[in-house]
């Protein structure tokens, strides 16, 4: 009776998440997520990176994970707000929403657009959490049959696939990945204990703390990057039409046109979140184009002038992708987006090892986390619509004050870790490197994946070789590993699919290469 035991454990999780303290973390998390979602340039990865050092002082990791998860999906809710009201996506996951959402707002249907985004997010968030609830443990059990070679292959797949799909240039992405892998190598060799790349200094013997790399790249580097583009013509948010709370601002035809895109968006978002595709960008754009095609087929094509389907679908997709991201993160310890990589670092801080064992060893933590998703989605739905005018006020904050505050907070956080100026300096140097990487169009998500997954991958690689007595063919003779390695190679070609398809059809490609922005 798998179903029943899952239900029982979920109920156990609910009872834990409804404790006042955990509920408070959930509310704090989703509120923060909402705010950073609204602010363009500041995303969940940056926010979680900023809060990572503080969580070192938590006695109980559950609160930290509830908060981090809340930030992640809260940002998905918030991102749509700026997309719709001022045509500036708050997050990369909301770029597709801006296309139709802002047109709706200009036509005086801002509230309907916000409502279909929020309700769609809730529906998708809840359905995908149900999927997560029932899928996670079986996949975890499946994963317990994995051997070292499989782990090596799947880690490689995650790194390469995410790198291939993010950014404008594959070569730059791979270079970023190599930088990350290199940083991960610094310190003592885990098997032999020999110092590597320490340049004879004792400081580097422990390696560079993942948290310092993350704070440096995401908090300091990203902030410098957005701050360097400081001046912009201010926008006026679209005026909200008068609406009644009782009907949820959607009229009957809106509901009729929204529910199918919500479900289709969920169906896209969840699996795409679970495979290494960089998070929410791919499914949101897929959902957008599917909804447009559906509308064309039916003949009432409003796309280009504010079609509600174009908001409902992508917004459902980006929220569903979050639960999808949690599947490999919890069951395999595999991050499929930059934000997930930062969350994985949080797991490592608390010495919680995600993977097949997680559901046995830390079942309270996992189920409380999953239960918090149900609660958090509900809180967001309640907070989102009636308070929209208040959320928008954060956009009035003068950006110099905001960025200065983030930088101070980042340095303070790093200092609180070690109490030494050396670590702060290191974070600042990494931040400046991150800034120039962004300036020169090098994606930074692969660096973080490299730093976090690199050491794990190396360990599995060497363990495999030890087991096989140094025979490297083990990676291709075990069918599962071989298949995953083939997939890894194929993943390199995914961005060039449009060109390949066009070549096969004998037509000119419309886009040279699929590109997706940095997941932030």
């Amino acid at each position: 009776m798998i179903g029943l035991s899952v239900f029982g454990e979920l109920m156990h999780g609910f009872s834990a998440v409804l404790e006042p303290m955990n509920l408070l973390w959930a509310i704090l998390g989703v509120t923060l997520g909402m705010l950073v979602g609204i602010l363009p340039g500041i995303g969940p990865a940056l926010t979680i990176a900023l809060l990572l050092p503080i969580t070192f002082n938590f006695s109980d990791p559950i609160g930290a994970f509830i908060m981090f998860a809340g930030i992640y999906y809260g940002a998905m809710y918030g991102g749509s707000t700026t997309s719709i009201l001022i045509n500036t996506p708050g997050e990369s996951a909301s770029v597709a929403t801006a296309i139709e959402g802002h047109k709706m707002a200009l036509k005086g249907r801002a509230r309907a657009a916000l409502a279909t985004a929020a309700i769609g997010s809730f529906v998708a968030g809840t359905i995908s959490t149900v999927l997560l609830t029932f899928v996670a443990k079986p996949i975890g059990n499946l994963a317990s049959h994995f051997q070292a070679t499989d782990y090596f292959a799947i880690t490689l797949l995650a790194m390469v696939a995410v790198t291939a799909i993010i950014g404008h240039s594959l070569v730059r992405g791979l270079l970023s990945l190599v930088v990350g892998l290199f940083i991960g190598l610094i310190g003592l060799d885990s098997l032999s204990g020999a110092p590597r790349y320490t340049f004879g200094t004792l400081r580097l013997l422990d390696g560079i703390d993942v948290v310092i790399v993350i704070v440096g790249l995401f908090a300091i580097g990203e902030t410098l990057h957005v701050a360097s583009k400081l001046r912009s013509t201010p926008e006026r948010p679209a005026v909200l039409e008068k609406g009644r709370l009782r009907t949820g601002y959607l009229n009957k035809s809106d509901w009729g046109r929204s529910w199918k895109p919500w479900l289709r968006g969920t169906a896209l978002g969840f699996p795409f979140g679970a495979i290494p595709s960089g998070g929410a960008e791919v499914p949101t754009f897929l959902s957008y184009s599917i909804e447009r095609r559906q509308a064309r087929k039916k003949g009432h094509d409003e796309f280009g002038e504010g079609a509600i389907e174009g908001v409902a679908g992508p917004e459902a997709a980006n929220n569903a992708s979050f639960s999808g991201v949690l599947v490999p993160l919890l069951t395999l310890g595999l991050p499929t987006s930059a934000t997930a990589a930062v969350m994985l670092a949080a797991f490592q801080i608390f010495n919680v090892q995600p993977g097949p064992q997680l559901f046995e060893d830390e079942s309270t933590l996992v189920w409380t986390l999953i239960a918090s998703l149900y609660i958090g989605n509900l809180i967001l739905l309640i907070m989102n619509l009636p308070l929209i005018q208040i959320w928008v006020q954060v956009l009035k904050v003068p950006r110099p004050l905001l960025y200065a505050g983030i930088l101070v907070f980042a340095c303070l956080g790093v200092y609180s870790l070690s109490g030494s100026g050396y670590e702060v300096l290191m974070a600042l140097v990494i931040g400046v490197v991150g800034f120039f990487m962004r300036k020169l169009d090098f994606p930074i998500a692969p660096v973080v994946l490299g730093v976090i997954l690199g050491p794990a991958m190396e360990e599995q690689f060497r363990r495999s070789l030890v087991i096989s007595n140094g025979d490297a063919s083990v990676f291709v003779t075990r069918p599962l590993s071989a298949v995953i390695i083939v997939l890894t190679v194929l993943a390199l070609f995914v961005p060039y699919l449009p060109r390949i398809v066009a070549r096969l059809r004998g037509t000119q490609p419309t886009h040279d290469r699929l590109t997706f922005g940095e997941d932030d």
Partner: protein
Amino acid sequence: MKILVGYVPTPEGEAALTAAATEAELRGASILLLNTSRGDAYIDARYANADELAAAEAKLREHGVEVTIQQAVSEGDVAGALLKAAAAEDVGLIVLGLRRRSPVGKLILGSTAQRVLLESPVPVLAVKVPSPHD
């Protein structure tokens, strides 16, 4: 001669606009309307949209005054933008709307009006929003 009015789509801005129109009629001057924003926040209600600028222009034309409209984001320095416009355009009078500020708010963000009052080489007419009792 020209009269420079610092316009924002708020009651203070409207008060300044009215005063500028009256003054321009009196002196037979034309008006240079400047609307600007520090441009450091994502939304700024003081950066007028097309409708508001058109309404302001119509209001001035009603008074039979000639209007030139300038709108640009000033690099964090609204007072500087006003003073620069005044120097470049042979302006004889600057009209500004004043609003009540808390001492702390002035400490953190400074006061545009105060800087213009102190640094302008030409006379400045500072206008308050008429209180509802008048």
